[in-house]
């Protein structure tokens, strides 16, 4: 029953390469002294990694739900801990997204970071390794290792290069997420004692006693819900986002938050299926609260970064909503939203970073009325704002549509409330957009975006339209994997009935 691992057909261990190549970049950077070569090295390392991730992407076989490009080496035999890597339709996309976002983060920090450039770039590269590692790992301990190790560079990114309240924000981020993760560790050990192995594949799609499932699910959920973050656990996010440097915010929004959703999809559903079903109504309610609450809080924000941070809470509500409606549309919508939110919100944070470099303020009023001053900037800003509230033709529309279909299949009432949330999203994004474009009359001498900044945003803009107008390549990539997940879950529930 357990999904099997297809060993790597390429001549070299591609997943290990993608995961650990940034570490090579770190090693090179350690030898360098001057700032300029350090930045270039970091950029090259992330770009090469992106190319490798494309190799992975194009060699990926979407016709099988199994894990591909597998690597397996014994690691700590005494505890049956192995070094196992593999990707399926869900993770191949996330790996590619991470590899795409990383060079953009290096680019956007080119001028913004003035002190300790070397350490900053090392942190970025360490982040990339840990994030890709989380998605590739198929052993719980390996997964947990990356999952936790990621906190250290992220913490340093906020604590050293952050804004005025960086102490508070970084500490809150670290302790909040660690608090969730320790329960994950306990759950992992419980699974190990049941299965005799830390393998993730071996733990999936099995019949566990219902009580056991409940506890495992709750332990998982604390960890993942904090990471997503779901409604009552979201308070670390605005603080961390606001204080983090641009690159940190982008990593946080585009990749880190996705790990929570990924965790639900990869662990909660296949391992604790019955408990997930049992708790699904609560999760749906929390998701809808997140969508509506996040939207209304956004309406009251005056800080651009905070507004986008709260909008993340609402967007991630769509993702968890899609996952916990248990239909194939819901899963597809959730996966698309994971990708879309990574692109759109990442881009919006980049945009805030760009204007912050010029005005040194994130207040909406200080940055208002840019329409005539920096037309290219406002053009991009319009595009990503429209995409953010799911304007038809942009990427988020497709994702939210799938989630809404799935929600309406399960419950009309839930669907209605979700629509309310979607309308609020339009209200707060349009309000922001109006202010930025026409909010002030006075002319200020501000430079428009330069080539480097346009280059940073162009790939993301391309994806906005690509996913918005022609999502088929992305959908078909993960379709088999998600259908397999749904079929397996159905089988499990039938077993439960008998």
């Amino acid at each position, binding site marked *: 029953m357990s999904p099997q691992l297809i060993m790597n057909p390429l001549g070299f261990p591609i997943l290990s390469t993608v995961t650990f190549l940034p570490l090579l970049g770190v090693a090179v950077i350690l030898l360098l002294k001057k700032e300029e070569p350090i930045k270039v090295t970091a950029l090259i390392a992330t770009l090469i990694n992106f190319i490798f991730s494309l190799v992975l992407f194009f060699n990926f076989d979407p016709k099988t739900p199994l894990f591909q490009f597998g690597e397996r080496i014994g690691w700590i035999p005494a505890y049956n801990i192995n070094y196992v890597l593999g990707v399926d339709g869900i993770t191949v996309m996330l790996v590619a997204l991470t590899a795409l976002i990383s060079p953009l983060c290096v680019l956007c920090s080119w001028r913004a970071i003035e002190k300790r450039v070397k350490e900053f770039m090392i942190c970025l590269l360490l982040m990339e390794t840990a994030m890709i590692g989380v998605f590739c790992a198929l052993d719980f301990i390996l997964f947990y*290792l990356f999952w936790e*190790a990621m*906190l250290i560079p992220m913490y340093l990114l906020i*604590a050293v290069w952050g804004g005025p309240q960086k102490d508070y924000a970084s500490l809150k981020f670290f302790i909040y997420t660690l608090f969730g993760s320790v329960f994950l560790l306990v759950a992992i050990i419980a699974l190990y004692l049941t299965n005799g192995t830390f393998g993730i594949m071996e733990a999936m799609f099995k019949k566990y006693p219902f009580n056991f499932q409940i506890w495992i699910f709750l332990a998982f959920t604390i960890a993942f819900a904090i990471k997503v973050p779901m409604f009552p656990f979201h308070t670390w996010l605005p603080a961390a986002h606001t204080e983090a440097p641009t690159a940190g915010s982008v990593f946080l929004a585009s990749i880190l938050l996705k790990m929570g959703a990924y965790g639900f999809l990869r662990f909660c559903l296949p391992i604790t299926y019955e408990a997930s079903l049992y708790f699904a109504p609560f999760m749906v309610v929390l998701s809808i609260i997140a969508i509506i609450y996040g939207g209304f809080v956004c309406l009251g924000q005056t800080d651009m970064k905070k507004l986008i941070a709260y909008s993340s809470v609402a967007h991630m509500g769509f993702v968890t909503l899609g996952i916990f409606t248990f239909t194939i549309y819901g899963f597809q919508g959730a996966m698309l939203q994971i990708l879309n939110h990574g692109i759109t919100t990442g881009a919006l944070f980049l945009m805030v970073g760009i204007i912050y470099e010029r005005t040194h303020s994130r207040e909406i009023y200080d940055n208002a009325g840019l329409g005539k001053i920096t037309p290219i900037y406002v053009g991009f800003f319009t595009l990503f704002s429209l995409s953010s509230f799911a304007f038809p033709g942009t990427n988020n529309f497709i994702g939210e549509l799938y989630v809404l279909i799935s929600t309406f299949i399960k419950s009309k009432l839930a669907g209605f409330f979700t629509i309310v949330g979607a309308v609020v999203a339009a209200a707060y994004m349009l309000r922001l957009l109006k202010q930025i474009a026409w909010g002030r009359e006075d002319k200020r001498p501000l430079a428009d975006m330069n080539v480097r900044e346009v280059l940073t945003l162009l790939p993301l803009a391309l994806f906005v339209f690509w996913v918005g107008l022609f999502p088929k390549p992305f959908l078909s990539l993960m379709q088999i994997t998600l259908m397999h997940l749904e079929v397996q879950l159905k089988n499990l529930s039938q077993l439960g009935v008998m």
Partner: protein
Amino acid sequence: MALLPEITVFLFSLLFLVFSLLKNRPSLYLWARGLVLLGIFLAALGTAVKGNFFAGAYRVDLFSQVFKFLIMVGFALVIFMFESEEEVEGEFLAEYFMFLGFSTLGLMMLVSSVELISIAISLEISSFSLYAIVPLRRAQTRGQLEASVKYLFFGAMATGVMLYGIGYIYGITHSTFLVNIIPHLIRYISQPLAVFAVFLILAAFFFKLSLFPFHFWAPDVYEGAANSTAAFIATLPKVAAAALVIRISMLASAGAKEVAIVLSIFAALSMFFGNLVGLVQKDIKRLLAYSGIAHAGYLLMGILPLSEEGAAAAIYYMAVYLFMNLACFYVLLLVAKRGENVAIDGLSGLAKKSPLLAFTLATAAFSLAGIPPTGGFTGKLFLFVSAFKGGYLGVVIIGAINTAIALFYYLNLVRMSYAREENATTITLSSHQKLLCYIFSVLIIYLGVMPFGLLNLFKRAF
């Protein structure tokens, strides 16, 4: 042959006794460093030998030799860390080395002793040397005198309690040899008398481990003693004490739930107490003392299932603990230019003063907090697994919660050294100091990522 490591340390101490009498002393550091390197070499060779000495009171086996090797490595690191005349007055330097040597000798004998009287004597050899060096600190103040008196009194009490327990055990089993005690004790192990006696003996080692409620001396002694002395007290006696706690609790291994229950209560209290009080500490050494109390609790998690796997996990954790704690103390030693105590605020701007020191401290602090990929995480994982396997889910959850609580103050160390950077004057490190920093960082990360070799060794030690 089998006793070569002990003999080396003994000669080390004798040599420094002679040096302390000489008018024209040779380079003490050079001799000390040379001899401990030889000691490490011999202790590594010693892991291959086995034997019984002194009518079976002294056993050389893999278990004892592994611990001796750890103690020897720790001792060598302390000797290499110590190079400042500012810590201890120059004229007492030879005596200082001598006492450190004798204390190490006592600890090495302790892990080989399998007879209650020799355990008591070895423990005293190591303790008395420490009583003597706690007040040895440059610039006499009330602090270290108070610390030494406290250490002496608490230590004497602990020894007394242990001897009391030994008396009970002898009364029950008519023997002081552990081999003979075990078969007799099994019949009585569920009775209050036997449990009481076992815990009276364990109390002396809990005292060394600074486990709650035997911890009262630790913060004051750490604070009062010289930084290098505190580094020694915080690590080596704990390694040996862990060995003895493992050995003695194995006495009760024949299904003594009562012992395990009391151990788990101690573990839980110790973790909570150490971490909660650690949250409000201002002085680094006091903070490390409370962290040590909490870590004694973590350690017990490996011991309380009374299984070999758990004990191997505990030894592994002790090895990691040795290195991460010594790394913290080393940074402290280098930051405290004049051998003074350093407050946590005193670390501010460390990353600018010396990036390497800040990195070493961060690695050690993250390891103490149990964040991967450091040894602290891997060690804690093994402890959690074995405690969970033994059925102590409650203790595991308490341990997990405590990991999150403790993070706050460990992170404070990192935060201070990275986030602030006013008035930074560069600390220049010699190549010797740099090398030690690298060794600490590499060891901590190595133990985190590649635990298999050592773990297998520890598993075979039973």
